[in-house]
């Protein structure tokens, strides 16, 4: 199930500016009918006090959620190798592209695999938050490091029937834009401290459409791609964009409901 990894974990949510860290536990409460989330009230600590938290979450299983991190997506063509060697090849490739990969963490998806070669989609983030994890929580079991936009995109994907779309949402003070092609995120962008500036927003939307036109989708068709809005407060921007594009608003969702939506609906 999609959200199984969240159970019984303590979440460390780092804000985008690396100023504070939000901590909460995720557990499930079960009854005869269904399971629901037990999500305690988050404690927010200043990042400078992170050393004190260390003893508080000693021995707990952690997941880290990063806010405001942009994902660099690269398409790589590699010779067909066994799974264990893929990481090595990606490491070398990233070393060649970025020169210094100390702060880079990545994950990948195999798009196509033939007998001779394979095509990969490599997702990278460049963040110093990893260093904080290493410094303070290296004795904990870390179940995963996730980006906040992944949860939003996954939520939007679960709410709609399209698998090719553009989505935009506001979390914190930042606006996130992501493009999904056949259920895979292939583009994302962040407008930091978004203040409702229409020009900036349409500029980023244009970049998203350009990215789509580089794929198998024709440029004329890119205007037909639906743009989904979530947690979007700027009505005027939404209305102006709706005049040019096919836009749908999905309303608002808070953090708790967002995580709850990922949990499996199982009856016991």
């Amino acid at each position, binding site marked *: 199930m*999609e959200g199984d990894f969240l159970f019984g974990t303590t979440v460390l949510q780092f804000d985008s500016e690396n100023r504070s860290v939000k901590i909460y536990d995720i557990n499930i409460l079960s009854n005869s009918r269904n399971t629901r989330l037990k999500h305690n009230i988050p404690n927010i600590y200043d990042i400078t006090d992170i050393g004190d938290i260390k003893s508080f979450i000693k021995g707990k299983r952690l997941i880290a959620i*990063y806010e405001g991190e942009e*994902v660099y997506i690269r398409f790589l063509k590699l010779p067909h190798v066994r799974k264990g060697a893929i*990481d090595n090849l990606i490491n070398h490739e990233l070393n060649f592209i970025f020169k210094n*990969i100390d702060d*880079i*963490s*990545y*994950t990948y*998806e195999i798009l196509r695999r033939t007998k001779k070669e394979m095509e990969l989609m490599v*997702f990278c*983030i460049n963040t110093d938050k*990893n260093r904080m*994890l*290493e410094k303070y929580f*290296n004795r904990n079991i*870390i179940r*995963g*490091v*996730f*980006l906040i936009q*992944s*949860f939003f*995109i*996954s939520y939007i*994907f*679960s709410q709609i029937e399209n698998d090719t779309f553009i989505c935009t949402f506001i979390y914190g003070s930042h606006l996130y834009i992501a493009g*999904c092609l056949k*259920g895979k*995120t292939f583009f994302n962008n962040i407008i930091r401290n978004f203040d409702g500036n229409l020009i900036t927003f349409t500029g980023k939307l244009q970049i998203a459409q350009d990215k789509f036109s580089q794929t198998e989708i024709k440029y004329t068709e890119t205007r037909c791609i639906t743009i989904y809005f979530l947690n979007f407060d700027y009505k005027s921007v939404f209305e102006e964009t709706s005049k040019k594009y096919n836009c749908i608003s999905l309303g608002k969702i808070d953090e708790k409901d967002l995580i709850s939506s*990922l949990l499996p609906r199982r009856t016991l």
Partner: protein
Amino acid sequence: MKILNFLPQWYKKKTCNAQMKRVMLLSTILLLVNLILFWLDLRAFSSLRYTNLNIKTNMTKSVSSSIEKKRTIRNSRFIDDFKQILLLKKGNIEYSSVEINETNIIISAIAETVEDYIGYVNMVESESNFRIKDISSPINSDNKIKFTVILSKK
């Protein structure tokens, strides 16, 4: 839709190393257990071999000693029987030579009369532990009868 997991490099390396360490530890333990078992086997085998050797040596010793004993007994019996033959001398019989080999006693004797000769032969046949294997025809010289008897164990 899959939620992407960006586990940091250091953590991947750490878990990989920890797994490797676990595998190494497990294989070392297995190796040690195997070595101990092998050593125990070897010890059991060598002790078994030693026991076998001991049994063999003892058996050889006991067999050879029993053969020796038997031989001694047989020899002593043979001598006793020979003594008996010598003592069986009755009447006027004189031994001129007595030859003893592994299986036979060859006695050359001189009898005074024919009766002495017949009496001696009958007595050997009936009273001793020997049987007459061969007897030479008696030779008459100076009114005395010379003869040779080859005796063997009954």
